[in-house]
């Protein structure tokens, strides 16, 4: 089920760190730790990766997806193999289960409705009912306010989706990633391109995680690049750190995603010869 393969990846930090360490966090995301001692008024972190994206193999006709969302919910608690996903049933720092979220989700999650169908319908509802409004929210905007005003950005929509699913008793996680910049011919440019993007993912026993992007009303495919996942945004912030001394600072982010026509093999050969 590999749909994303990292061919190579590099991280450059300026000023040069005196110490670096690589590892992975609790969720298996790659983490680089750097320590910069040199006084500086600007820290530049550039991550560049070459990846191969493939289609996410999911046949919605699979009998698996005909099972009702309630049976998924019950399996999560009864089947010991679902233990790892159970973590995603619970409250997290930015997303708390709430009757209001449940109330919002229930009209879509009708009794006996197949899991995948319900998720697709729910994805569409968030897309239809919420307004994309970058000026409305920031990281501190509470979920309740987003739900009430029905406005926000991809991060808020992903949080609403995750919170609603958890309120139903389903396991859902937050996915952080990028969108491909230029749309393929004949397709519209996706909102949130050229920036960090976020979507949600729900757990289906025997299959795994089914991702859905409520900001664009689609199931992520070859245009969504996964960077990391966690219980909510707080665990997959692209950069976290502590600054000693100095005054205030601002954070600027830019993302560039470029499709490469070359086959990965050719690419590697080119690099070796250069």
């Amino acid at each position: 089920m590999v749909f994303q393969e990292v061919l190579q990846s590099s991280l450059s930090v300026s000023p040069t760190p005196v110490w670096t360490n690589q590892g992975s966090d609790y969720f298996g995301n790659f983490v680089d730790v750097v320590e910069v001692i040199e006084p500086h008024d600007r820290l530049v972190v550039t991550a560049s990766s070459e990846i191969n994206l493939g289609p996410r193999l999911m046949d919605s006709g699979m009998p698996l997806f005909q099972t009702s969302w309630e049976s998924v919910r019950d399996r999560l608690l009864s089947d010991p193999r679902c233990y790892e996903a159970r973590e995603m049933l619970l409250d997290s720092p930015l997303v708390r289960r709430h009757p209001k979220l449940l109330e919002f989700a229930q009209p879509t999650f009708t009794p006996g409705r197949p899991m995948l169908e319900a998720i697709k319908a729910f994805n569409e509802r968030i897309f239809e009912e919420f307004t994309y409004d970058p000026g409305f929210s920031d990281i501190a905007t509470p979920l309740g306010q987003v739900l009430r005003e029905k406005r926000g950005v991809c991060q808020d929509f992903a949080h609403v989706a995750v919170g609603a699913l958890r309120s139903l008793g389903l396991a859902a996680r937050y996915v952080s990633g990028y969108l491909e910049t230029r749309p393929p011919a004949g397709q519209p440019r996706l909102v949130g391109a050229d920036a960090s993007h976020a979507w949600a993912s729900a757990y289906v026993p025997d299959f795994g995680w089914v991702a859905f992007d409520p900001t664009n009303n689609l199931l992520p495919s070859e245009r969504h690049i996964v960077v990391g996942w966690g219980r909510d945004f707080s665990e997959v912030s692209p950069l976290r750190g502590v600054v000693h001394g100095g005054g205030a600072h601002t954070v600027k982010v830019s993302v560039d995603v470029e499709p490469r026509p070359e086959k990965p093999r050719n690419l590697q050969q080119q690099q070796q010869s250069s």
Partner: protein
Amino acid sequence: MQPYHEFFDENGRPRPHQEPLSRYLGQHDAKAVQKLHLAVQGRLLEQEVSYNILSSPDGASRNWVLDEVPHVISPEEFASLADALSERAHLLEACLEDLYGPQKLVREGVIPADVVLGNPHFFRSLHGARPLGDRRLVLYAADVVKTSDGQYVVHSDRTAAPTGSGYALENRLVIGQILAEPFREYRIRKVNRFFDLLAESVRSLSARKIIDPRVVLLTPGVHDESSFEHGYLARYQGFELVEGRDLTVRGQEVFLKTLEGLKRVDVILRRISDDWCDPLELRADSVLGVSGLVEASRAGTVGMANPLGSGLVESPAFRAYLPQISEALFSRPLALPSIPTRHLADSLHRQEVFDTFTDWIIRPAYGDRQAAPLRVKSMSPSEQEKLRAEILETPASYVAENWPIASRVPIGLNMAEEGALSLRLFACASGDGFTVMPGALGRVNDSPDGLFLEGESATISKDVWVIGTDDAEPVEVPRMPEPLVEIRRGGVDLPSRLFDDIYWLGRYTQRCNCNARIIRAGLEPIQTEGSEVPVELVAALPRTLAALQVLSPGTIKKFGLEQCLFMAIYDRSRGNSISSALSRVHILTTATRSRLSSDTWGILRHATELYAKAPVERVSSQEAADRLDALLLSLAAFHGITSSNMVRGHAWVFLEMGRRIEQGVFVLTLLTHLFQAGRSRILMEALLRICDSLLTYRSRYLSNLQPTPVVDLVLTDDSNPQSVIFQVKRMLACVRSLPQKTPFPLSRAEQRLVTLETALLTADLGKACKGEGRALKEIAEEGINLLWQVSDDLTQTYFIHASRSRAIAPSHWIGAGLEADT
């Protein structure tokens, strides 16, 4: 049901194990009893034992209240209590071991996943990491009460950074000495061995196997509610007391920042709860922790007591599941039970609690100690309904507790009153097991319901005596130990923050001194002559106070002289008023207490107490001047005792530098703002009086007041300890004694001081004082400028770490990206 009475039996007679104490106290008449009482209070005051109250806005602390009558426990009762307590400690440790590892307790459904995976005190970044020394609990504390049927039950577990052992020790040192006679007769078990064991356990966590690993006690700082205890324990156990900003992580190792560079830290005994320990991986808004500490701890380079993450099991929700956990892990019932606790995530338990709602106390399941527990009984029916609705919204975040009636103990030597008793017991890891402190921190609550809920009624503390059984144990009256040390000079392994605080202690005490003298100059004519203050002074004093940033320019325009002077003394909203500067002195004194002798400490306490309370009614000029005199005397005593008694190490150097900079700037400011303003006889005399140099001037020049000799005396006469040149020369000597990377070129501070010294030595005073005196003003202003730069140089060179750290702003990842696109 009647509460169990600890001291008297059903017939009102003292219980057998209380008899010796009862007899001893019976021998004392009212007068002797009063003497004992005063002795205890005197000791506490001497030590300034305090307990800061978090909720009070001005950071006030309340004095520690210690009852003179100790609580005595029989040897048999204590032995079984201690066994049960160490089993509970084992159980909690095993629980941590599982939850930060395989999580069988959750996988097998012994406890609901929410209690761990939904618990904000479960730190995912620590999952799978093994603590050094393989112990998950090094120090554990539990609060217990005794029920009506004589059974001990736990109402609070402390597993992250248990507090109270220092207060228990302090109580023992006070009561054990004052009641030495019954202490010996009972053969009371001593607690000092427990602290030795704890120190040994803590040292053994060092990754480097060296004889003398560096152990630090990490405190949140002087504002923490139990900061007294941190300093006390650090001194008792010989650990360096540090704050988060004294430490730094380089690579994966922890270092102490000292004047001579970074020194590796081996073990941290922490008094900071888990989430505040590392702003990088735990709470990003923490300024108390050390960024990178989690990484260092995971890498196994630094021992932590208790290891990070251990706070998980002190969540009240765990109490609800401990009986099952005990069966699952140890296959036997819980040895030391808890008060009835229900986690409301469970629908059966929720129903039970709702059915008997008024019997319960509701609190957050995951231990937010800031949130007040709710007594359902004292809520109105509508409030109860609201609470039910809130519980139903997120049931997993609440627990309900049903408090038993706690046992009662008498209060005071006459035993006229009584209150409910709670004991905080301590256990420390030793070998593979736990050793329980033979004693406890006793707390007595005399409020009607006798509950021990956080942040509520002030409680009285009691020393807790456990009767000894081992006759071989030598009977000694407890006292502070004298650790055996090797001969050393200096003391450069101290955190450099301490020198920063000492430097500012020098500056603020001197600032108080200077400001008090100038204010007094304005009050004196008012009180002595009963006549008007000379007009020159009326204008010049407020202007000088404004230049010294004691008053604002707006204030001096708006108010008269007397009003201005009073504001300069009492107005706490002004940072440099006498009372504000003194409260700063108080904080610095507390922070540097470990480096001040008890006499020095006493003098400073006396000085700060003079202005500790805002005056309730209008103060007369006479009273204000008298109080300033008292302050000046105290400050002179401080100056005197430090000059004559303080070792000439780095602490002395920074104290001296702080003072000298303030005095230099002060005199230079007087020259530009007081003297310069017309140079009348009155102002020249005032200048000399404020600089305490009038007598010297008169002995040299009689009453012939002229600008040039006046200026010479306070600016360039190096035999006058009040003069600017005197300060500069002393500072040069200080700067030269500090550690420096290279002998040449001179440090920037030294260069500036040499520049200033040369300027003063070569100044042509006759010319400078001529006419408008512009040249003099230039010299003075340049001098002030240089001295401020010297202060900055020192900060840059020695205290740069004092600047605050902050987290990189977490927001705008998405917004900024979109803007970049458009």
